C-alpha cells in the first residue's frame, strides 16, 4: 500500500460525480479539489456551502444523506486561517466525501447546516466553542464544552497548550 501522489488539479477530477454535480450547480463556488489516500476533498466558497450540501444530499446519483462529522482546522498564522471541514456520508452508496470551506480570521462566519441536518447543532456549537467560528442561523450558538464564562477558544493555534494564556 505505497502512497500514491495526491491529485490536486481540479481539471483532472472533473469527472468525479461529486465534483461534476457541484460544478454544474455553481462553477465559481468550487475553488479546488484533491484526491489523496483514496479520499476526495472539495473546497467550496463559504456562501455556497448550504446549497452545495443540499445538492449533494438531494442529487439522486450521490445521495449524501448523512452528515458524519463537522470540525475545523486552524492554520494560524496563515490566512485564511480557518478551514471548516465537513464529512458527508452517503447511506445508500456507503461513501464518504470531505467538503472544506476556508474562512479568514477577521471574519469567521459561515452558514449553519442545522436547517439541513438538525444533528449539525452540537458539532457547530463545538466548533464555535473551541475555535470561535460563528454559524449564522444556528438556533442556539453557545459554548458546549468550556464553561460559560471562559475567555478564548482553546483549539486555536495561538492558544497555548500549557501555562498562562
Amino acid at each position: 500500500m505505497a502512497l500514491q501522489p495526491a491529485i490536486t488539479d481540479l481539471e483532472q477530477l472533473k469527472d468525479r460525480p461529486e465534483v461534476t454535480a457541484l460544478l454544474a450547480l455553481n462553477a465559481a463556488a468550487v475553488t479546488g479539489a484533491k484526491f489523496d489516500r483514496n479520499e476526495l476533498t472539495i473546497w467550496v466558497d463559504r456562501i455556497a456551502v448550504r446549497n452545495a450540501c443540499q445538492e449533494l444530499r438531494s442529487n439522486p446519483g450521490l445521495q449524501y444523506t448523512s452528515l458524519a462529522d463537522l470540525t475545523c482546522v486552524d492554520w494560524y498564522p496563515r490566512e485564511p486561517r480557518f478551514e471548516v471541514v465537513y464529512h458527508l456520508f452517503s447511506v445508500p452508496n456507503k461513501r464518504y466525501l470531505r467538503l472544506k470551506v476556508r474562512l479568514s480570521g477577521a471574519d469567521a462566519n459561515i452558514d449553519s447546516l442545522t436547517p439541513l441536518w438538525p444533528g449539525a447543532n452540537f458539532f457547530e456549537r463545538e466548533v464555535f466553542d473551541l475555535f470561535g467560528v460563528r454559524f449564522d442561523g444556528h438556533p442556539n450558538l453557545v459554548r458546549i464544552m468550556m464553561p460559560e464564562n471562559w475567555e478564548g477558544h482553546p483549539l486555536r493555534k495561538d492558544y497555548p497548550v500549557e501555562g498562562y494564556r
Partner: protein
Amino acid sequence: MAHMNPTPVLDPSQDQTMVLNMGPQHPSTHGVLRLLLEVDGETIVRIMPDIGFLHTGIEKTCEAKFYQQVVPMTDRIDYLCPMTNNLAYCLAVEKLLGLEIPPRGQWLRVLLNELTRINSHLVWLGTHAMDIGAMTVFLYCFREREDVLRLFEAVSGQRMMTSYFRIGGVSMEPPLGWFDRTKKFLTRFPSNIDEYENLLTNNPIFVNRLKGVAYISAEDAIALCATGPTLRASGVDVDLRRDLPYTGYENFKFNVPVSKVGDVYARYMVRVAELRESQKICMQALEGMPEGPSKADAPKVVLPDREKMKTQMEALIYHFKIVTEGFTVPEGEVYMPIESPRGEMGYYVVSDGTAKPYRVHMRSPSFANLQSLRTMCEGRLIADVVAAIGSIDIVLGDCDR
C-alpha cells in the same frame, strides 16, 4: 457553576411548566450528563442536555504529543471500548503513512476489537437493565465482563486503559495459553447470553417499560446524525465493518442485526444480537489466526523487539530515535471511520509533515447520538427518559473528550 446554563432555550414567561434538573450526579445518566427537563406534570415538554463536565481538551493535548504518544490518550476517551479508539487512531496514522499491517496483526486486532465490543455491550446491558429495575442482570454481566478484562490484562498489562494497538501492529504477542483462555470464555459465552435473555427478553415488566418507548424514525435518526445500534434499530442497515471493511473485517462472516421498530426494545434486541455476532467473529478469528509477525516491518515507525534492541546496534538506534524524536508522517489528512460499539467512531488526523499531529479530531458516537434524545423523549413521561438514555448507550468521556 458556570455550566448551569438553562437560559438559552427556556421561556420563563409561561408558568404552566416546571423545569426539573436531572444530573450531573444522577445515577442513571451514565456519567456526568446533566439534563434540563421542562415538564408539564409528568410529561416532558422539552429536554436539554448539558454536557462538557468531563471535557479535558484531549484534542488540544494531542497536538503537543508525538504520534505514538497519542495512543494512550485515545484509551481515555471512551473508557468502555479502549481498543476501538486505539484501532481508529492507529488506522488513521497508518493510512497517512501508507503502512501495511501483516495478517496476524490484523486478526489480533479484530479479535480484541470484538472482545472490546462484548465488554462494552455487557456494561451497557447491565446498567440499562439496572435502570429499568433488574438488578440481577447487572451482577451477571459484570461477572462476564470481569473475564474479558482479565483477558485484556493478560494481553496488555492493563484492565481498562490497554493501549494495546500501536501504530504498525500490536504492542506484543499475547502470552502463552492466552488463546486457550479466550476460547474457553467464548465457548461458554453464548450460554451466558441465554441467561441474560431468559431474565429480560420476555420479562413482562422489562418489556412493558421498553416497548413503544422513545421511538425514533429512520429519517429523524439520519438527520440527527445518529449512528450504530441506535440507527440500525430504526431500520437503517449501515455497519462500517461490513460496508467499508478495515483491518481485515472482509475475511469474517457475520450478520448485521437490524430492526425496523425504532423503540428502546428494538435497540435492546439489536445490541443483544450484536453480542452473539461478536462472539462468532471472535471464534472465527481464533480458528483462522494466521502465523507470522504481528507488527509491520517498518523500523522507523515500529519499536523494535526487546531482544533485538539488546543485540543489534541498528535496533537500538531506531528505538532511541523513535522515543526521543518520534517519527515524521507525510503531509496530508485522513478521516478514518470505524464501527465502535456505540456507532461511528471517526478520527480526522491532519499531518503537516512533522513528528506531531497538526490536528486530531475525534468524531465520537456518543456526542452525536445524544442529540436524538430530544426527539425520543419529548411528549413522553419522565420515567421514560431513563430508559431512553440507557438505550442510546452514551459514555460521557467519549461525549466530552
